[in-house]
């Protein structure tokens, strides 16, 4: 009897898990594994993968890294120790993504805080105003921003009308940054707001009563309690930023290259599938590493309090 029940239970679990599990296995895990495999293959004349096995694709990424200390003042103070085409590409992508995440957070936090402190009726309205860009097509929104900033766009037309010189607003690293912040803001505001809305403000008062100053109360009481929203928002901002393709093309004109864009190019214009796969795998490792590190730090904070 027990045996039959146990078998029925196992069968039920299998039945519920099978369709979704099979789908994820076939169309998510297997493709990633094939991609990883291809990164160790050579390329044929057309850029498609072919035997023999090789480490060439990874060697290509690190080959030209040289020790070349330099200091330059162009575009702010830059101190470099190492030099290398792909090293710089990876470094720039990580740096721009991190910076855009921080800027997005710096803007989103006060907004989310304000929204959470509004009376319920206005809170719904504010939430609605964040939801619309959140659900609107990312491509359409980035295009709208690009349209505004074009050399013959509304801003420059306005400048010309009032007798000023038009300015180049697009196709710079700053434009890419602006695009990333613009595109990702709703993805940061919403999770932060969700955490802040649930936050019990009397806790801060309790902390104050127990002798904590504002900074300490924020660090030890508020931060741990809103960290789920903080984590979710940062991941939802950093991951699309480092892999961004639309923003790099529309806002940077492809001139400020980033990993995601460089990978896409290996599968279209200058085809080299094995090399593109190697870069993808490296990027995946970076992102996963960043996510794990970030989640760890978040949980550590939590433990500290309890």
């Amino acid at each position, binding site marked *: 009897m027990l045996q039959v029940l146990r078998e029925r239970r196992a069968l039920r679990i299998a039945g519920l898990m099978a369709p979704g599990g099979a789908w994820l296995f076939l169309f*998510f895990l297997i493709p990633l594994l094939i991609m990883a495999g291809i990164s160790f293959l050579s390329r044929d004349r057309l850029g498609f993968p072919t035997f023999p096995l090789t480490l060439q694709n990874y060697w290509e990424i690190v080959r030209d890294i040289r020790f070349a200390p330099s200091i330059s003042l162009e575009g702010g103070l830059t101190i470099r120790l190492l030099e290398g085409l792909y090293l710089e590409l990876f470094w720039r992508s990580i740096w721009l993504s991190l910076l855009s995440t921080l800027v997005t957070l710096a*803007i989103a936090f006060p907004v989310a805080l*304000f929204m959470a402190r509004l009376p319920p009726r206005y809170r719904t309205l504010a939430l609605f105003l964040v939801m619309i860009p959140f659900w609107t097509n990312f491509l359409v929104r980035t295009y709208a921003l690009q349209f505004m900033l074009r050399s013959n766009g509304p801003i420059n037309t306005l400048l010309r009308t009032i007798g000023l010189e038009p300015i180049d607003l697009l196709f710079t690293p700053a434009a890419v940054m602006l695009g990333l912040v613009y595109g990702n803001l709703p993805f940061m505001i919403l999770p932060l707001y969700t955490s802040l809305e649930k936050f019990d403000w009397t806790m801060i008062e309790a902390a104050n009563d127990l002798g904590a100053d504002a900074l300490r109360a924020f660090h030890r009481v508020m931060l741990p309690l809103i960290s789920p929203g903080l984590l979710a928002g940062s991941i939802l901002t950093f991951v699309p930023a480092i892999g961004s393709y639309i923003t790099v093309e529309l806002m940077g004109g492809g001139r400020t290259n980033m990993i995601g864009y460089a990978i896409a190019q290996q599968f279209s214009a200058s085809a080299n599938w094995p090399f593109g796969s190697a870069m993808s795998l490296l990027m995946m490792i970076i992102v996963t590493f960043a996510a794990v590190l970030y989640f760890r730090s978040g949980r550590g904070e939590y433990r500290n309090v309890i």
Partner: protein
Amino acid sequence: MASDVILLGERSEIKPPRRIARRGSLSWFALVTVTFFTFAFLYVPIAVLIAFSFNSARTGATWQSFSLQWYERVFSNTRILEAAANSLIVAVLATVGSVVIGTLMAMAMERYQFRTKLAWDAILYLPVIIPEIVMGISLLIFFATISLSRGIVTLVISHIAFCMPFVYLTMRARLADFDKSLEEAAQDLGADEWTTFRRITLPLLMPGIISSALLAFTLSLDDFVISFFVTGVGSQTLPVYIWGQIRRGITPEINAISTLMLLLSIVLVIVAQLIQRRQRT
């Protein structure tokens, strides 16, 4: 508008804490200012785009006169209509597929303990933290490896794959709040398992199913990066078509399409909010 908010803010039942952003204090005004400029930053480009979709001028941003010609062009351009139809077909199929398999998986993961559960938990989070571009090219490689020609089929397969984890996460949260005693009561009263599922479980899960369906539908309709790599000639979705036009620099029609897509998003947000509100009451 900002001062309105502050005045009406006095009615809040949440007691303001002593030090952080008391209404009327300097830090409160700072919050109001930042929020105001952030919303302006988010909405001005969208508003400008909508305005210029009604501009009769073909190029540049000089206002000529009000015109609906770009909308007429959109609705008489068969390639745009085909792309829109493709997008809808893919979105509907991807929604149905991902909601069914995602919900089943959420039920198994929420209600049962089994050995491989932890591994599945990790795998189901992966599509959320892996950049779209990686998923796009890995699917491109996969379809090339099994020589499946790219088209509607590959689009639907890929869309189900990336929508499903989001459906799963939504449904799992809903199932965690599910009152199991209602099912037990039904079975005590003599209902068999299928009847219990059909008459009790499914109706109670319906709001969750509808909101995850809306999520999947929007995700599928909005996707560009993954679709770009798994789409074929003649099966372009609307975002892929828009991308091609933007890159070629042909834009007045794009302003009109974008406005229409924006309208659709607003409708979807309103529907989602209404469902949530009905659920609460």
